[in-house]
């Protein structure tokens, strides 16, 4: 039973569709939901939650994710998804996401929306100030250490490989030694 749009309109147009007067339930063509993903673009992605690495298809239409579901071709999950993976749609479509750069001044009791440029410059300035003030060329044993112990960098397990590689490269180039992420906990 293939319900086409035309059939649907025909049905919607007339409630006079024939049905049994008597006692049985006649098989009737059902209404059809709009085929929401039929004309959408499919983009494959991998679930951002646990380490199983399930394949997910995001259906994209007009720059919006309109549906997400398990990738039936993916050998690990074969289309299956748990509750978390199944809710990916609400990550892409979520009112509460951070959409602006936020800044909280010392002692302030609220966020302030700021521009990227301003924030990045301020972060860089803070970074340099802290690094320069505490950079150690040698340790107590007079061994060369070239490190900055006053800045820590944590996290990265939710980043892509390329990002976390760049992050490690940056952290170590800055001289950080307090470098940790979720693998430890």
């Amino acid at each position, binding site marked *: 039973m293939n319900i086409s749009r035309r059939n649907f309109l025909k049905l919607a147009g007339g*409630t*006079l569709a*024939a*049905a*049994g*007067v008597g006692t049985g339930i006649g098989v009737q063509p059902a209404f059809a939901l709009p085929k929401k993903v039929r004309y959408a673009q499919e983009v494959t992605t991998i679930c951002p939650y646990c380490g199983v690495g399930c394949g997910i298809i995001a259906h994209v239409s007009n720059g919006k994710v309109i549906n997400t579901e398990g990738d039936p071709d993916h050998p690990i999950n074969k289309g299956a998804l748990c509750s978390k993976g199944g809710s990916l749609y609400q990550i892409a479509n979520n009112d509460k996401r951070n959409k602006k750069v936020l800044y909280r001044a010392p002692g302030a009791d609220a966020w302030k929306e700021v521009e990227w440029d301003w924030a990045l410059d301020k972060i860089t300035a803070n970074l340099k100030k802290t690094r320069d003030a505490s950079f150690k060329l040698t340790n107590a044993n007079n061994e060369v250490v070239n490190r900055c112990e006053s800045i820590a960098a944590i996290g990265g397990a939710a980043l892509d490989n390329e990002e976390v590689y760049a992050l490690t490269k940056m952290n170590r180039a800055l001289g950080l030694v307090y470098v940790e992420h979720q693998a430890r906990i």
Partner: protein
Amino acid sequence: MSAHGDMIKVTDGIERVVHWILAGSCLFCLITGIGFMYHSWSFIATFLGGPYAMKWMHIFSGLAFAVSFVYSFFMWKKDCQFESQDLQWVLKGGGYLWNVKDLPPVYKYNAGQKAFFWILVACAIVIIASGVVMLNPLYYPVVMARFAYMLHAGAVVLLGAFIVVHIYLGTAGNPGTVSAMLTGYVSRPWCETHCPRWLADRDSWKPGGEKDVA
């Protein structure tokens, strides 16, 4: 009043209004109910603006039916008390089914009319009570709700049939009757035939009353 000629007033205005509210709402409910019951009769809903609109029409019409029913129950119940000679009337087929001349004289309503009243009462109680349950079926135990749906329909079977009888006998079956519920007046011969005892009684209350009125 002379417009009525030699006519006898059998119903007053309130009675007629209540009757027609009752009759109208009942018929409307019956028709819309049939529209719900038979998907193939969904044109009824279409004429009335769709099944959703029809749902509310059915409910409000049912409300009118219920109110007018309660009023009419108290209005007519006294006149519809059975008496001993009603049995006789029934045994003779009320003079409708076969020609019998010596019917016991009827007061205001004959046994058939009384029976119709009481069947209406019984069915209406069932229909209204079940209808109330159906308004909020989820507030009641599911078994009760299911019985409500069944009884609502079951009572309609009975009531629907009797309404047809009532309409036939009130119109084509007994010419001259319908005016009782339209103008309130019927002819004297009609009265002599259908409610002789009541007529006699009436004349005794108001000697020549009818003529006065006329």
